């Protein structure tokens, strides 16, 4: 599949967009979300979620200052849905953020829902369903926000959008059912069947000698991070997750699920060779690697389409660029005065149904009855009390403009990419593997201008420390962006400046209608209680904890076993101690007498 570059930027369009920017244009998309069939890896034709009868789904492109309106109609028939615009801050429009059970109810089949917000940030983003484990079925696409005043605007000639992802052959609903089940007690995540680039394989990208290209790379996958490298070309990283960085050269980068990198690649002057580029799924994440799995997806930078497409050369080891070293171009200083710090201890464990769940501070996230934002708006002064958001939502109430610090200790031997809605955070500490928990009494040296992004990898049994200013009133999720772990509860809720939200936010009618269609309450605490909002009776609960040690059942069984054993031993002793029967003894005597010589 060749990419048509001219469709993204050409001088006329750029000029047009510039004018629109000045005039604050409105960009409208009518999305009819429904099932279509696709076979992107050539191995399995399967139903995927497309838009307007097509898959891959459209790219959303706009300029800074534009208003984006997405009229989403759910034509899936069998699943509700929602759209989240990953990385967009949605300042002032928290209710357009998209996660079901947090800022909205799911869009029921047959219903429509309008997302309407303005953009004030440039860069590379993406949009995807934020309804239970749904986006890996195909509902994921790029969001590109152009910036007429970009510091990069004179540094490249063309822009190329490249998405990477893992790919399954089965629908997420079935996979999720098998994943959170007694028969998967170790919580082994389903292993993808293949890797895709731009929702296909063997992608070719035409290169013109001497030109410089801005590659906007997005991992839209469900699970696997990917190592990405271009043979014979160096990447110059200039943006991560929408934050311009000081340019840094890299031969290989590591893109976790949901991360984005914009890199400049300068074309060679010669056209005698075409070059392979690779995305390679990080197999460390997989419980078992099937022998049949090809973790790699190959594409080519094509200088001359009459020449061969050479096979990618094998590499000895993966040695990706460490994103912690990046410096934001705006040089925002380290937030060195923290107003509110809290710790999230991550672990995986099993609950009473035998399935494996993910926990922050021993709490696995369970979606409340009332979307948390709606609880904020309907609980009055109690909205500042985290209790109203339920016992199983890991809710933290943040004061307006506080500097907030999240310490995350990964007590799990897996890699996890963490994402915060509504913010890009400063990454002030990131440990190596096996570093254990963060010690706040002996903090390491922190970078003066820390890297900022909205999705960050925490290493196995390591920790990260993130800081951000709570300048965006709203309800924002903080979660692992491995879709399996979202489903198994690795989510915390940031309730930011709830009283300001009450003053500034009004819900549109179609948002309330969506709840009505889904038969979900729109007022009250997490349990839907509107009278006493501190009473959580009826709130959705996770499965009970695993019984530890002996329950009544075990004690009864053990006591019965012991009694049975003692009775058995008593019977044996009775039999063994019984004298020989009279008959026996008489016989023995007779025998002895008869046998005795003389």
């Amino acid at each position, binding site marked *: 599949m060749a990419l048509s570059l001219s469709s993204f930027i050409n001088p006329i369009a750029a000029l047009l967009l510039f004018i629109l920017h000045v005039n604050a244009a409105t960009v409208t998309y009518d999305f009819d979300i429904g099932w279509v069939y696709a076979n992107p890896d050539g191995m399995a034709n399967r139903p995927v979620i497309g838009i307007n009868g097509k898959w891959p789904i459209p790219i959303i492109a706009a300029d800074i200052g534009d208003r984006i309106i997405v009229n989403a109609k759910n034509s899936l028939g069998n699943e509700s849905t929602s759209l989240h615009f990953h990385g967009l801050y949605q300042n002032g429009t928290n209710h357009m953020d998209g996660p079901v059970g947090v800022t909205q109810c799911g869009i029921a089949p047959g219903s429509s829902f309008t997302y309407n917000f303005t953009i004030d940030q440039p860069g590379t983003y993406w949009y995807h369903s934020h309804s239970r484990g749904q986006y890996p079925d195909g509902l994921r696409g790029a969001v590109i926000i152009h910036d007429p005043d970009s510091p990069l605007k004179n540094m490249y000639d063309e822009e190329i959008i490249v998405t990477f992802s893992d790919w399954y052959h089965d629908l997420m609903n079935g996979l999720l059912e098998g994943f959170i089940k*007694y*028969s*998967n*007690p*170790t919580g082994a995540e389903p292993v993808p069947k293949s890797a895709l680039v731009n929702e296909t394989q063997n992608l070719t990208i035409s290169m013109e000698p001497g030109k410089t290209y801005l590659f906007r790379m997005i991992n839209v996958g469900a699970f696997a991070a990917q190592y990405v490298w271009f043979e014979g070309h160096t990447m110059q990283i200039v943006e991560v997750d929408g934050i311009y960085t000081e340019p840094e050269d890299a031969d290989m980068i590591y893109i976790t699920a949901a991360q984005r990198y914009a890199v400049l690649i300068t074309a060679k002057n010669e056209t005698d060779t075409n070059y392979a580029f690779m995305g390679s799924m990080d197999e460390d994440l997989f419980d078992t690697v099937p022998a049949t799995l090809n973790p790699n997806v190959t594409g080519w930078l094509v200088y001359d389409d009459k020449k061969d497409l050479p096979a990618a050369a094998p590499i000895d080891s993966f040695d990706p660029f460490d994103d912690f070293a990046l410096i934001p171009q705006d040089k925002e200083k380290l937030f060195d005065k923290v107003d509110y710090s809290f710790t999230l201890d991550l672990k995986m*464990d*099993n609950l*009473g*149904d*035998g399935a*494996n769940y993910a926990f922050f501070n021993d709490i696995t996230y369970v979606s409340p009855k009332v979307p948390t934002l709606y609880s904020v708006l309907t609980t009055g002064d109690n909205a500042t009390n985290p209790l109203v958001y339920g016992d199983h939502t890991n809710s933290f109430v943040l004061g307006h403009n506080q500097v907030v610090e999240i310490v995350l200790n990964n007590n799990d031997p897996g890699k996890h990419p963490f994402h915060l809605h509504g913010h890009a955070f400063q990454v002030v500490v990131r440990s190596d593997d096996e570093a254990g928990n963060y010690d706040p009494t002996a903090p390491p040296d922190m970078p003066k201008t820390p890297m900022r992004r909205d999705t960050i990898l925490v290493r196995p049994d390591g920790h990260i420390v993130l800081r951000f200013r709570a300048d965006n009133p709203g309800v924002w999720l903080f979660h692992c962006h491995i879709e399996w772990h979202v489903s198994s509860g690795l989510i915390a809720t940031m309730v930011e400046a709830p009283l300001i939200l009450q003053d500034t936010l009004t819900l549109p009618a179609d948002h309330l209608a969506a709840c009505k269609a889904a038969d979900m309450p729109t007022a009250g605490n997490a349990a839907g209680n509107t009278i006493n909002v501190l009473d959580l009776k009826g709130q959705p609960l996770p499965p009970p904890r*695993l*019984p*530890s*040690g*002996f*329950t009544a*059942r*075990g*004690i009864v*069984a*053990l006591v*019965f*076993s012991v009694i*049975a*054993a003692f*009775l*058995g*031993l008593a*019977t*044996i*002793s*009775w*039999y*063994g*101690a*019984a004298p*020989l*029967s009279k*008959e*026996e003894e008489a*016989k*023995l005597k*007779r*025998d*002895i007498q*008869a*046998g*005795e*010589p003389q």
Partner: protein
Amino acid sequence: MVNVFAVPVFFICFRECLETSIIVSVLLSFLKQTLGPERDPVVYKKLVKQVWLGVAAGLFIVIVIGAGMIGAFYGIGKDTFANTEYIWEGVFGLVATIIISLMGAALLRVSKLQDKWRVKLAKALEAKDSKSVVPANGRFKRWAEKYAMFLLPFVTVLREGLEAVIFIGGVGLGLPATAFPIAVICGLLAGGAVGFVIYKGGNRTSLQIFLIVSTCFLYLVAAGLFSKAIWFFEQNKWNHIIGGDAAETGSGPGSYDIRDSVWHVNCCNPEINGGGGWGIFNSLFGWQNSATYGSVLSYNLYWICVIIGFGLMGYKEKNGHYPFRKASTKVEDERRNSSSQGSGVLSEQIADKRAEAVGAGTNVREVRESPA
């Protein structure tokens, strides 16, 4: 610990060795009483030497055969079991349970052997005395009579030894080779020691208590093995469900099927790293840190069977018939039939061996079958 000391193997060795040493001690004391060093020192010495030669020869053959069997078993067997390990362990456990259950009752009656053997011995010597009267019985019989003092211990050792080899093979199928030596040696030493005490005139009552206690242990082991066999079958099923070896997940969640769990503690696992003290607890009493409905029910069911079985045998010994049945004519028939059997030493030994292998229930019949 379980990997270097197999408890059932110990009890089997102990039992077989005790039986052998009782017989040998009866022979020796019989010789002492009838001939005595003072009465006919030359013949006495010769006969004592015969006895010990018989023991040594029997032991030698048993060791050769036993070593060959065990060697062959470990040479062929191990790898073929790897994939279906849990099924095999379960099957072996069942086999071991049946063997122990059947032979255990016989152990209780070892104390009677002294009397029985005294009778046999007397008969053998009697036959020897009267050999001039019946010379036509063939050379073999005459030879056998002449060397009775060699043949009796030889055959006894051979018989008990091979029995032990077969039992140990059955019980120890699932055990590593390292579990055998110490258990075998300890069993032999303990059996020999107790036999010696009996020879030196240890009293009947303490022997009886001793036998009861060791039989009780044997049945505890068997109950545990039975429960464990069921547990292995269930664990095999669980391994298939999760598509791997649950033991790899340690003792925690995921190592067991929550739906079948009666109790589970995340410690005290008898399967991991030999189990330590819990491993001994497991092989003696069938301890599981993760008990299932199957393992608990089978354990209790086993004891119910034992209680009923011993109860019936006890009742029959006391009353001559099973409960709810009249003292039947069957017993009489049996007596008549068996009295027609040959009374030679060897043939009686064969009958005796058969009866003993079948278990204690037949001991009653065995006593009856001797001609009055």
